[in-house]
């Protein structure tokens, strides 16, 4: 069996609009097949039938020609965890799915999750603020699939999903933002609190323990029924633009007052990333944030976006274990992390 390698998705390598603040834009559309029980109630035979139906709907289709077909069962726990950390699959697909599978385009921009909570989840992830583009990419795959499959669709309630929170468009759109200046100036809670008032969800980098670490916050839509896909995406984009403006103002104010301190912080962060020998996840993610801010403000030109994105992903526990090819204890992870960070820095500075 082929082992999964650690590689970089295009959202890490490429660049996009507002990339200094918006790291990536994601959308996913939930779809189900008519006349098949949803995965949570389905037997193993039934989920297998759904898997085969979707597989044959994509086979030989122009839009899916170069996709890889990956069964969850063929992966180790570590490999699945790494796929979660690269935003390619959900924790649910990694852990709990029966006949779960991933159809993945080589650039890793777009993919399909099969037998997640819904039969089908069509996803797209792009660098920078590109929600419209991400929805357009996912929508194209949806167009191909809807002609091949009988979707569960209701004239009044739209796309039917297992969870009522997804009924309607089945569309969840989200943006990962780096907001160090709003955090440093203690304005973040005010802004993020306001977002939850306008029907958006905000969470930190962590899913369940949702503390905002590494100054990363994810904003996504809550409503899926009563708004069109375009409205969902445009609303989210416009709110994100307002947050970007606030962050830019805060960055400018910091730069005016504390230029030397910010420069020092960024260079120290690079020093620690280069030379430390034991490093926890939170610490690493904080240094990467400091370094990114220094880069964005033009205070440190020796690093680039691609390196920063690569570091952001490779310090994650699943990816570390994937590279080490074995399960690691917490202490072993903290020892492994600086090694992998150094390797990436050496490659960059070589």
């Amino acid at each position, binding site marked *: 069996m082929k082992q999964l390698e650690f590689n970089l998705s295009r959202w890490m390598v490429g660049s996009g609009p507002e990339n200094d603040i918006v790291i990536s834009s994601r959308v996913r559309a939930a779809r189900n097949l008519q006349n098949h029980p949803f995965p949570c109630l389905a037997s193993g035979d039934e989920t297998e039938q759904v898997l085969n139906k979707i597989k044959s709907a994509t086979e030989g289709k122009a839009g899916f020609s170069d996709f890889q077909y990956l069964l969850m069962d063929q992966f180790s726990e570590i490999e699945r965890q790494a796929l*979660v950390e690269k935003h390619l699959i959900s924790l649910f697909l990694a852990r709990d799915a029966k006949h779960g599978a991933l159809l993945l385009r080589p650039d890793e921009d777009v993919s399909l999750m099969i037998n997640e909570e819904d039969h089908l989840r069509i996803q797209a992830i792009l660098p920078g603020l590109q929600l419209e583009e991400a929805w357009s990419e996912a929508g194209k795959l949806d167009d191909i699939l809807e002609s091949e499959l009988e979707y569960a669709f209701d004239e009044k309630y739209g*796309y039917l999903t297992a969870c009522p929170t997804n009924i309607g468009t089945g569309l*969840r759109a989200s943006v990962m933002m780096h907001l160090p200046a709003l955090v440093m100036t203690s304005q973040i809670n005010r802004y993020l609190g306001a977002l939850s008032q306008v029907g958006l969800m905000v969470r*930190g980098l962590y*899913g369940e323990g949702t*503390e905002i670490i590494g100054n990363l916050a994810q904003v996504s839509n809550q409503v899926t029924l009563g708004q069109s*896909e375009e409205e969902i995406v445009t609303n989210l984009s416009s709110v994100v633009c307002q947050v970007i403006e606030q962050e830019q103002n805060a960055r400018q104010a910091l730069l005016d007052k504390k230029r030397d301190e910010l420069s020092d912080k960024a260079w120290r962060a690079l020093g620690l990333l280069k030379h430390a020998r034991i490093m926890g996840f939170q610490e690493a993610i904080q240094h990467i944030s400091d370094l990114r801010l220094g880069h964005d403000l033009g205070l440190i030109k020796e690093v680039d976006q691609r390196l920063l994105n690569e570091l952001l992903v490779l310090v994650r526990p699943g990816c570390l274990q994937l590279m080490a090819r074995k399960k690691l204890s917490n202490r072993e992870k903290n020892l492994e992390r600086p090694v992998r960070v150094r390797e990436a820095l050496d490659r960059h500075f070589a």
Partner: protein
Amino acid sequence: MLCQECRRHEATIHIVKNVNGKQSELNLCESCARKKDELDFSFEPQFSLHKLFSSMLNQGLYGNREEMLADEKKCPSCSLTFAQFGQVGRLGCSDCVPAFEDKLKPLLKRIHGGSVHTGKVPEKARERVNILRELDQLKDELQEKVQNEEFEKAAQLRDRIREIEQDINRKNAETEDVDHNQEGEEH
């Protein structure tokens, strides 16, 4: 202090959480903290459907709580009852929505604010949905005209609405015939 997760071991790891702008503290033991080490970048709502559902039950939105929980009406396709849905928070199949429509409606309204899909429609359903959306729009206009006492225009709208509705009924009858014929052939 005991671990908030398992309530068995001593909490040795303290994390300050920031959820939707509100700060709170998380105190975990080593082994529960390690589980949290698995990153989840989900952008799914963290929304407790269970809580919403039980609060709606308690507010009497579903009538008598005991009667509602004892209601054994099942989805004809997957046999899920509405009480079971309330426990797991997930529907069983696409027929659950029409089966429990009257009970789902207030729940959907609470979650989304809206109650009618206005977005993308699969090609196969487009013609029918366009007609239904036109019908809804005409009905809104009709109401407006009646309120403004523009009775002549209202009468025109009413005739147009009737025409479309008859058209829909005729088409429904046709597709039912087709369904029966197909069933006949299979047997």
